[in-house]
């Protein structure tokens, strides 16, 4: 297998192999944090940075890690960056740390972080592993921010705490309680996946059709 290029990695992580829509990883936080845009942004920035640096670190020392103890090292590296991120948030953005509550700590067990450090980092050099981790986080961010931009107005009448519906929307109870709660993201993720995959399939078929046409043209 040849070494993946930066361009391939980017394309894989952002679309064809999107961690949420295709690999269906990181679903717990996808459901949990996406009812506010600001929370979603900070959470996904955290996941992107942690995945990037944990992949970098583990790739850098990959020749020294015995395969049977690799998970200990993965958890060590991931925990290190998550705790660092949490300490920085606590000190410099205490309001955000407060509003994210337990979710920052739970990045440690985010499936995307574990997935990238388990599959990509041990087989590739540090820089491209960093890029792979980072773009995986961005692919995750893209989907989550889309969800939160749909959920927050329905739930609280705001986008990033900026009111877009009149205050009566919430005070008179017109807001969607379901949009506040995690299950709404289930429906939304399913719809986004459906659209995404249908489009992807169409492209694939068009590509196949073009190839067959080419091959036939060559034969004729």
């Amino acid at each position, binding site marked *: 297998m040849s070494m993946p290029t930066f361009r391939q990695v980017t394309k894989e992580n952002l679309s064809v192999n999107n961690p949420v829509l295709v690999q269906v990883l990181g679903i717990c936080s996808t459901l949990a*944090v996406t009812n506010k845009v600001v*929370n979603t942004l900070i959470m996904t920035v955290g996941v992107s940075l942690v995945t990037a640096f944990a992949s970098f670190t583990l790739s850098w020392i990959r020749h020294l890690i*015995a395969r049977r103890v690799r998970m200990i090292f993965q958890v060590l590296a991931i925990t290190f960056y998550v705790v660092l991120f949490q300490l920085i948030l606590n*000190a410099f953005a*205490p309001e955000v740390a407060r*509003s994210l509550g337990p979710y920052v700590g739970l990045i440690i067990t985010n499936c995307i972080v574990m997935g990238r450090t388990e599959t990509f980092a041990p087989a590739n050099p540090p820089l491209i592993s960093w890029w792979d981790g980072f773009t995986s986080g961005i692919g995750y961010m893209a989907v989550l921010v889309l969800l939160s931009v749909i959920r927050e107005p329905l739930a609280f009448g705001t986008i990033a705490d900026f009111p877009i519906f009149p205050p009566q929307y919430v005070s008179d109870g017109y807001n969607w309680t379901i949009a506040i709660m995690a299950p709404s993201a289930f429906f939304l993720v399913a719809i986004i996946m459906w659209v995404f995959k249908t489009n992807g399939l169409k492209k694939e078929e068009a590509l196949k059709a073009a190839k067959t046409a080419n091959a036939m043209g060559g034969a004729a």
Partner: protein
Amino acid sequence: MRINKDSHVFTIFFTFAVTLVLVFPLTLAFVTTKPIADNYWRLQHWVKTLRSMGISADAAHPHQAERAYQALKKYTVKGTVNYDAVKANPHSLAITRVNDEVINKALQDTSYTGNLPIFFYSTVVDGQKRWAGDFTGPGLWGNVSLAVGVNADGSQITGVQVLFDVETPGLGGRIGEPWFTGQFKGLETSQGVVFNPSGQKLPNGMDAIAGATITSTAVRDILNNRALILLKAFIAQKGGQS
């Protein structure tokens, strides 16, 4: 030199080395950021304790908040609290005065857990006695810590503020928002606090947060099973003094 990464000795040595290398900067980061986090937590504590007593305070004016907080009379509880015994006999609660240093030390120890010891405060607002306290109980994810204030005879709540919580963002985490904490002002305490039936506002009723039943119940239970019982005992013991 060729390293056999699969040998036991190397694996053990390397795991230790990596752990050490990672723990060292983390400790450094912790030691440097802890005072900043502590300052924030202490300021929040001053402001919210004052607000629960109906005294205006603002985190934007830390010195004013500090002066107003220092002017409060402060007490704590000796030993562990037996709530049933206190309920039966308010004088069985052992209350002693504390100074600001003891409280600051307690705040330093709890800035990441919110597991505050019980502190009581008393002061006079507009010629009327006010009583307040910090009360902590279990929420959904961790501790929920409330500052609860009551009026001179303890018959009405003057304010509830959330000192600490790690509840679900967007759901239980909203207990800190003003629309939620604001609803407690003026509630009657004699029957305990209950959830409002839908569409009604009872004189001792609070609205729960949709989708956050456990956190809402935790707030109600901290109020009924801890705060109101202990504040009643506090007033019974100190209410006679001027």
